[in-house]
C-alpha cells in the first residue's frame, strides 16, 4: 500500500505551495503576543477545543481552526498540528510521519554505502529548472525509500560486490540524476542479464522516462510492467501508469491529456481495493480537478470541510480550498469570514491609491465595508463568528460600538467565542465603563488557569490600564515572554516568517534567561508619568531589578534636564545598586555640591552611558561592561527654568513597532497597545490609570523641558530653543576652565564617542578631540582616541 507520504508528495507537486512560508524575510514580531498561538501547551488547548482570543493577524489555516471551533466542529491534535504550519512542504510530510524513521533521500544515500564501488554523494537534486526562475519537483521521498529497500534486498541476495548489483546501482544513480537535470543517459545493460536485473531495469527505464518528462512513454512502460507476470513491480504498474499520465496532464494542460489521465485513474479504480495505489484515486482526481474543474472541486471541498470531524488530509484540503476560494466568484462562508476579519484592500486599488493618494481613505473604506458586512451577517444569522469579525473591526466610540459591545456581553461563558467577546467588550468600554466594574470582570477572567500566555498578556494589559493604584500598575505592567527559544519549544511562528529571534535589553534577564518585561502600554504610561511617580515606581520591589534600572535611568535623564539635583542625588543612590558599573560616578554625583561641577559630573554619566533617554520608548539598557553599552547617544539639551518648549510626548505608534497595522507617525487614537494590532483593526486607545491621569498636568509641565532632537541628512541641526544649552558644550567649557579636574580627559573621550555615534552637537566630537590631544596628549584617553568623526 502506498504510504500517506506519497499522497502529500504528489499533492505538493501539483497545487500552489503555501505562500505564507515564503512571505518575506524573518522579522521581529511581538514578544508577548502571538497570533500563531504560542507554545505547544497553548496550541494543544486550542486543538482540544478551548479557543482563546481570535486574532485577525493569525494565519489563514489557524483562522480556519477558529472557524471550526466557533461552529462546533472538532479540530484535534493531528489536524491542529497540520493547520498550524504552512502546508505542504516536503519537510512537513516528514513531520507528519515521524514514526517512519529514516526515509527518502537519506535512506537511499545510506543504502548506497553498502556497495563498495558506489561513488560518494552528499545530496541529490530532486528538482529541475523550470521556466521563469521556477523549479519543478521531479522526484519524491517514496522513490528514494523504495530504491533504498530494493538495493538492500539485491545486496542481500546477490552480494555487494556483484557486477549486476553494481550495474543496478549505476543505473539507479543515473535515474536519480535525471531528477535534477536533462540529458542523462543510462548505462548499457550487460548482455544476457539475469531475470531479476532485467525486470528491475524495465522499472528503472520507466521511472527514468517519468523523471525525464516523457510522460506517455513512462505510462506505456508502467502499463507493460503491469502486465508482466514475471516482474516484481507488476502490482505497481497500474498506479504508476495513472500517475505518469496525471503528471503529463499537468504539464501539457490539454483536454486530451486530462481525459487520458482520468481514463487511467478509472482503470485503476476498477481494480481490487488492495491494489497498489488504489487508495490514491481520489487524490489524483482532485489534483486534476484543481486545474480543470476548480468550481466543482471547491464545492466538494466545502462539503467535506463542513463535517464535524476533520478530514485526514485537512491541511492539503484547506490549502486547496483557500486557493480556489480566492479565485471564485463568491467565497464560501469560512473564507469570506477570514477575508472580512483581515479587511485588506484590493491590491490594484491599493497600488492606485499609493500612486494617486488616498491610501488612508482606502483602508478606512475597506474596513468600514468589512464591518458592515460582518454586522449584517451577524444580524441575519446570529452566527457568533460574524459577531467576532464585527467586533475586531470596530473602534470604541463608533456608532456600531455600543450595540456590538452589548452583544459581546451576552455571549455565554461556555461559548467558544466568549474570551474574544470579553476582550473586545473591554476594549470598547475601557474608557467609558466604571473602572471598578472592568477591574472586577478582568480579575475574574485572569483568575482562570486555562488562559494562553498570549491571551493572559493581552488581558493583563487591559487590567493595567484600569489599575486602582501605582502598586497595581506595577503588578500588571509586566508581560510574560513567549516563544523564547530553548526555554519553550513548540511555537510555530518561525514557520510563518515571524522571527524566532527576540530583542535585547527588554527582559528581566539577558538572552534566553529573560522571562518578563514591560508591556508596550506600560512603557507608554510610564513615559507619561511625572518624575515623582516614576521615581516611586523605580523603587517598587515588585519589579525585577532590570526593569527598575530602566525606569531609574530614564528618571535620571529627566532629573538632569529638569535641574532637579535632589532627585538626581536620590536616583544616584538607587543607581549605585542597579548600575554598579558606574558606582564611582554615582558616588561622585552625590558628593558634589550644587554648582557647575555637579552639572559636569551629571552630564558625564550621560556621555558615558549612550542609551540614556528621558523616555523608555527610545532608551537602550546598558548591559555588560561599559565598553559593551549599546549606542547611540543623543544630543542632550537643557532648557532654562521658565522657558519650556511645546510638550510632545512620544507618539503611541512608536510603542507598537513590533506589532501590526500602525504607521510610526499614525495618530494615538488609532493605536492598540494591548494586543499590538494583532487582534484586529479596531483601535484600542490607551487609557491612563486614574492615578496616572491625576499626575498628567505635572507630567506635561515636565515634558516641556524634554527636547527630542530631530535630524536629517545634509541639513544643519535645528537651532537650540531660546536659552537652551547643549550638555556637551557645557562640558567642554567646564573642561577648558578646569583643566586639572580628574574627570576631564575621560569626559572628552566620551564626547568624541558621542560625536561618532549620533550625539554630535556643533562639531562637539572634533572640539573634544582637539582639546584632549592638545591638553592631555599622554593620557590613556587620548591614546584610545586616535580619530574623531565629524
Amino acid at each position, binding site marked *: 500500500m502506498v504510504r500517506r507520504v506519497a499522497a502529500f508528495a504528489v499533492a505538493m507537486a501539483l497545487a500552489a505551495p503555501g505562500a505564507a512560508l*515564503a512571505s518575506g*524575510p524573518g*522579522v521581529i514580531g511581538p514578544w508577548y503576543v502571538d497570533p500563531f498561538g504560542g507554545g505547544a501547551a497553548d496550541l494543544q488547548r486550542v486543538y482540544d477545543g478551548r479557543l482563546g482570543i481570535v486574532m485577525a493577524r493569525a494565519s489563514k489555516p489557524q483562522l480556519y481552526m477558529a472557524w471550526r471551533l466557533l461552529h462546533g466542529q472538532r479540530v484535534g491534535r493531528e489536524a491542529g498540528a497540520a493547520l498550524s504550519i504552512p502546508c505542504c512542504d516536503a519537510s512537513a510530510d*516528514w513531520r507528519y510521519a515521524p514514526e517512519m524513521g529514516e526515509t527518502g533521500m537519506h535512506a537511499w544515500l545510506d543504502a548506497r554505502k553498502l556497495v563498495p564501488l558506489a561513488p560518494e554523494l552528499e545530496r541529490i537534486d530532486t528538482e529541475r529548472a523550470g521556466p521563469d526562475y521556477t*523549479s519543478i519537483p521531479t522526484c519524491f521521498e517514496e522513490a528514494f525509500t523504495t530504491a533504498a529497500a530494493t538495493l538492500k534486498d539485491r545486496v542481500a541476495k546477490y552480494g555487494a560486490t556483484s557486477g549486476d548489483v553494481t550495474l543496478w546501482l549505476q543505473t539507479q544513480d543515473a535515474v536519480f540524476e535525471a531528477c535534477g537535470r536533462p540529458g542523462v543517459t543510462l548505462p548499457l545493460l550487460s548482455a544476457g542479464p539475469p531475470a531479476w536485473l532485467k525486470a528491475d531495469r524495465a522499472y528503472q527505464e520507466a521511472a527514468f522516462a517519468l523523471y525525464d518528462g516523457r510522460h506517455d512513454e513512462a505510462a506505456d512502460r508502467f502499463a507493460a510492467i503491469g502486465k508482466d507476470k514475471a516482474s516484481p513491480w507488476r502490482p505497481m504498474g497500474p498506479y504508476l501508469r495513472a500517475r505518469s499520465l496525471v503528471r503529463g496532464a499537468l504539464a501539457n494542460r490539454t483536454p486530451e491529456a486530462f481525459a487520458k489521465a482520468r481514463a487511467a485513474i478509472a482503470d485503476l479504480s476498477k481494480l481490487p481495493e488492495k491494489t497498489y495505489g488504489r487508495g490514491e484515486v481520489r487524490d489524483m482526481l482532485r489534483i486534476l480537478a484543481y486545474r480543470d474543474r476548480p468550481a466543482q472541486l471547491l464545492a466538494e471541498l466545502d462539503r467535506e470541510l463542513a463535517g464535524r470531524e476533520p478530514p485526514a488530509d485537512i491541511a492539503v484540503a484547506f490549502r486547496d480550498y483557500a486557493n480556489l476560494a480566492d479565485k471564485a466568484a463568491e467565497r464560501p462562508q469560512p473564507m469570506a469570514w477570514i477575508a472580512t476579519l483581515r479587511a485588506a484592500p484590493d491590491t490594484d486599488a491599493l497600488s492606485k491609491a499609493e500612486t494617486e493618494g488616498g491610501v488612508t481613505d482606502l483602508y478606512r473604506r475597506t474596513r468600514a465595508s468589512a464591518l458592515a458586512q460582518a454586522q449584517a451577517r451577524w444580524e441575519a444569522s446570529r452566527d457568533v463568528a460574524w459577531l467576532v469579525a464585527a467586533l475586531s473591526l470596530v473602534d470604541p466610540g463608533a456608532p456600531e460600538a455600543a450595540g456590538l459591545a452589548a452583544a459581546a456581553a451576552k455571549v455565554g461563558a461556555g461559548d467558544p467565542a466568549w474570551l474574544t467577546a470579553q476582550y473586545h467588550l473591554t476594549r470598547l468600554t475601557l474608557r467609558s465603563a466604571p473602572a471598578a466594574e472592568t477591574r472586577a470582570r478582568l480579575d475574574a477572567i485572569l483568575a482562570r488557569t486555562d488562559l494562553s500566555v498570549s491571551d493572559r498578556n493581552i488581558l493583563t494589559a487591559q487590567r493595567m490600564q484600569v489599575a486602582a493604584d501605582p502598586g497595581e500598575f506595577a503588578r500588571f505592567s509586566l508581560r510574560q515572554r513567549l516563544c523564547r527559544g530553548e526555554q519553550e519549544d513548540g511555537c510555530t511562528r518561525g514557520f510563518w516568517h515571524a522571527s524566532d529571534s527576540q530583542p535585547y535589553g527588554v527582559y528581566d534577564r539577558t538572552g534566553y534567561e529573560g522571562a518578563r518585561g514591560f508591556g508596550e502600554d506600560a512603557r507608554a504610561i510610564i513615559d507619561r508619568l511625572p518624575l515623582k511617580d516614576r521615581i516611586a515606581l523605580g523603587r517598587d520591589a515588585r519589579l525585577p531589578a532590570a526593569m527598575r534600572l530602566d525606569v531609574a535611568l530614564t528618571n535620571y535623564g529627566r532629573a538632569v534636564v529638569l535641574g532637579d539635583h535632589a532627585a538626581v542625588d536620590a536616583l544616584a543612590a538607587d543607581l549605585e545598586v542597579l548600575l554598579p558599573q558606574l558606582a564611582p560616578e554615582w558616588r561622585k554625583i552625590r558628593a558634589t555640591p550644587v554648582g557647575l561641577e555637579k552639572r559636569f559630573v551629571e552630564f558625564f554619566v550621560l556621555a558615558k552611558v549612550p542609551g540614556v533617554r528621558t523616555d523608555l520608548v527610545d532608551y537602550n539598557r546598558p548591559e555588560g561592561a561599559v565598553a559593551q553599552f549599546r549606542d547611540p547617544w543623543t544630543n542632550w539639551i537643557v532648557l532654562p527654568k521658565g522657558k519650556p518648549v511645546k510638550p510632545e510626548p512620544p507618539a503611541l505608534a512608536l510603542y507598537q513597532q513590533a506589532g501590526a497595522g500602525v504607521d510610526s507617525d499614525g495618530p494615538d487614537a488609532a493605536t492598540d497597545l494591548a494586543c499590538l494590532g494583532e487582534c484586529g483593526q479596531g483601535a484600542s486607545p490607551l487609557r491612563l490609570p486614574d492615578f496616572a491621569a491625576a499626575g498628567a498636568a505635572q507630567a506635561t509641565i515636565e515634558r516641556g523641558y524634554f527636547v527630542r532632537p530631530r535630524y536629517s*541628512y545634509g541639513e544643519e541641526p535645528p537651532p537650540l530653543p531660546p536659552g537652551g544649552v547643549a550638555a556637551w558644550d557645557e562640558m567642554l567649557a567646564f573642561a577648558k576652565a578646569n583643566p586639572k579636574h580628574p574627570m576631564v580627559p575621560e569626559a572628552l573621550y566620551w564626547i568624541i564617542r558621542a560625536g561618532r555615534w549620533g550625539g554630535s552637537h556643533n562639531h562637539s566630537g572634533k572640539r573634544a578631540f582637539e582639546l584632549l590631544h592638545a591638553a592631555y596628549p599622554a593620557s590613556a584617553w587620548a591614546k584610545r582616541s586616535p580619530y574623531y568623526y565629524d
Partner: protein
Amino acid sequence: MLAAPAASQPLTIWAWERPEDLRFAGRDAEVAVMTGFIVLAGGRVEARGRRFPLRAAEGQVTTAVVHLQIDHRRPLVWTAAREAEAAHAVLGFARAPWVKRLQVDFEVRASERPILLGVLKAVRAGLPSGVELSMTALASWCEEAWLGQAPVDEVAPMLFRMGPAGASIRNRLAAGGDFTEPKCRRALAVSTDTPLPRAPAGRRVYLFNPRSWSAADFALARRRIEAWSGE
C-alpha cells in the same frame, strides 16, 4: 556635521515566493529572486525551489536568494555531513549562469549562530569565483561582534518590523549614526509598508514588498529612497 549623502543608491527588488512581473523596472533596479527554501529538521535537510514564476528583463536578475530555517519542534541533529549537505543545497539554488550574487537568508537564535556561520563558510568555499556572497540580518545583529565572523561580502540589515529596538535604530540612522559592524554598511533592506525617513546613502538597497510588486509600488519606494539624499 552629519554624514553627506551619496548621489544614488543601487536598488535591488526582492522577488519573494509569489508571482512577480518586474519588467517594469527595466534597468532601474536589479532583482534578487528567491530561488530556494531549505528547512533543517532533526537530522534532515529538506530543500525545494521556487514555485511561482518571476518575469524579468534580460540581465535584470542578478541575485539568487536562498532561505534557510530550522524546525524547532524537534532537536536539530547537526553534523559536519549535514552542514556540507545544507551548503550543497544552497549552492544548488545558485548554479545558474545569471547568478552574480548569492544571498543567504537564514535567521537563527543566539545559540544557533555557529550553524549559520558554518553554513556560510561551507557555501563560501564552494562558491564559483566572481560570485559575491551576501546575507540578510536582523538589524540588531549588526550591533554584535559575532557577525564579523561571517565570510560574506555584504550584510543587508532589515530595517522593518525591528521590534522594541526599532525606534532606537531608526533614530540612530536618522541622526547620521551607523551600524557597529562594518559589513553592515554596504547594504540595507527596507519594506514598502515601513517607510524609513532617512538612512545612510550610497548603499545597495534591497526592497521588500509584502505583496506582489507593481510599477506604482516601485515608483513610490524609489521616490522615498531618493528623498533620503534629496535627489
